[in-house]
């Protein structure tokens, strides 16, 4: 429901409303979604099931009664639905509660004209350290996320969850802002006079070389590998959460409780290559270190160097738009190295001098403008 529609109907977020039409009615809470048309509300189908096991039974409301079968097809739009507010409120379980980027330059966007002109952002100044940086003798893993390609589908989030045995914590814990996703997609709305633009940005551990999380850990439970990975040693972690506080990207996740893994059958779904973490330890994205090691072993067994693109992280593998590129930054020919040298490449929060392994390619937005008379095609991204 759009903000305007909500104010017209006199409802607030989380307020339960009754949608009814010709004898069918359901009660569901309101979620305000900028960018939604003011004249319609959207309801997700597929909820309100009665026999779906411990996790899914009775969750949400069944919207299928509103679906009509017209002219041989299902009609998923229902007209003349009335909205009655009720006095019940529920707290929605959302993974992101603040929707505005507060004008911060987190997601770079360029107009087509800017992109064509080639002048995208200020060349960053050379940043100085007060010490000599460490070098990475063999590999230096890096990732580039193309914001132009990303469609915000969340496939990466799910595949990461499956790959890395990330616990599903349930609604209550999400309401307490304790979801465990290692990868997430940040979404910001920009309210503009002519409507709302939505920007999103996949975010995961950026594997900073000057990692602010590492230096503060008292027990060396998070240190840097010789391949540029920011490693988390689960069995050394005592859970001070200092690292998470000091992470500017807030990508570290803490095991607040002992999340259950007692169901023997369900445990068969766990990835045997990845540890299951216990209560009280910190966890986070590893750039799928198990896959990196597997790739290295394969290459070594075959007595050859690792090929670019051979190692794929789970998120990269499942990205339908190929927005995620992963590879070795030590290899100047790898696609990740090449992307790093394109003009659109930028480092998030560069002013902190963290030297991340994860960088982004800025988004070019074509708002129907044309450049030089003809829409330009085929320019290299």
């Amino acid at each position: 429901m759009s903000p305007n529609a909500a104010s017209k109907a006199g409802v607030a977020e989380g307020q339960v409303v009754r949608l009814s039409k010709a004898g069918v009615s359901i009660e569901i809470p309101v979620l305000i979604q900028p960018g939604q048309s003011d004249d319609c509300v959207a309801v997700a189908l597929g909820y309100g099931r009665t026999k779906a096991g411990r996790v899914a039974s009775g969750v949400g409301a069944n919207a299928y009664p509103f679906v009509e079968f017209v002219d041989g097809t299902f009609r998923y739009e229902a007209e003349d639905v009335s909205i009655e507010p009720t006095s019940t409120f529920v707290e929605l379980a959302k993974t992101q509660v603040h929707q505005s980027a507060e004008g911060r330059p987190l997601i770079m966007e360029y107009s087509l004209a800017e992109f064509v002109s080639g002048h995208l952002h200020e060349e960053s100044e050379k940043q100085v350290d007060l010490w000599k940086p460490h070098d990475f003798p063999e590999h230096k893993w890096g990732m580039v996320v193309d914001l132009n390609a990303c469609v915000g589908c969340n496939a990466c989030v799910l595949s990461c969850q499956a790959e890395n045995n990330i616990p599903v914590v349930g609604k209550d814990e999400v309401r307490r802002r304790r979801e465990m996703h290692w990868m997430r997609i940040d979404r910001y709305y920009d309210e503009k006079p002519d409507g709302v633009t939505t920007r999103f940005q996949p975010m995961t551990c950026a594997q900073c070389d000057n990692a602010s999380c590492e230096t503060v850990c008292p027990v060396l439970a998070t240190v840097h590998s010789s391949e540029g990975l920011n490693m988390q040693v689960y069995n050394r972690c005592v859970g001070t959460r200092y690292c998470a506080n000091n992470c500017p990207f807030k990508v570290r996740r803490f095991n607040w409780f002992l999340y259950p893994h007692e169901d023997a059958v369900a445990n068969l779904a766990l990835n045997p290559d990845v540890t299951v973490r216990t209560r009280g330890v910190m966890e986070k994205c590893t750039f799928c270190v198990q896959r990196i090691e597997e790739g290295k072993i394969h290459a070594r067994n075959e007595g050859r160097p690792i090929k670019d693109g051979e190692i794929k992280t789970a998120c990269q593998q499942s990205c339908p738009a190929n927005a995620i590129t992963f590879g070795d930054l030590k290899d100047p020919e790898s696609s990740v190295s090449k992307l790093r040298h394109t003009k659109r490449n930028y480092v998030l929060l560069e002013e902190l001098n963290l030297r991340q392994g994860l960088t982004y390619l800025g988004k070019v937005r074509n708002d129907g403008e044309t450049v030089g008379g003809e829409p330009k095609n085929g320019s290299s991204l």
Partner: protein
Amino acid sequence: MRATEPSEKTVRYAAAFFDNEHDLMAIAAEARLRGFEIQDVFTPYPIHGMDRAVGLKRSRLGWIAFVAGALGLISAILLQVWTSAYDWPLNVGGKPFNSFPLFVPVMFELTVLFSGLISIGVLFMMNRLWIMSKKKIFEGVTDDRFILVLKQEDASFDTEKAARLFKKYNAIKVMEGDKFV
């Protein structure tokens, strides 16, 4: 001054009790200047200037504290540099293995810890303060009595002169004993 302590056990002594620090200080000064050997004085609280009155040199504990502190400082440097840069060098947040400025806090703390604990340990040892201690405790010394103890061992000890002196400064009580344990 340390040398006199072991002989305490066998010394025959004369003790005079006073009820204020001024008399005690004056008699201590006079007794010393008149050639008496002062075993010790006992007071309920430390008296400023008493060391000068009985002719005690400044304690060298300050130097012990300094040496102990230096020891703490060196151990802290060795511990941190060795573990972080030699025994187990790890890349922590890109910082150098030997991040010396960041080792300063622990260096300081260990300096203070060593210095404080060792000097207080030495104090307890030198004064033989420990839980099973069986020292001679004069009555009222922890309340409001000020006591001068003169050594009698010495052949030159003049009992009469001592008695005159005690009287001059209004000794409340005078007692003698043989063993000073």
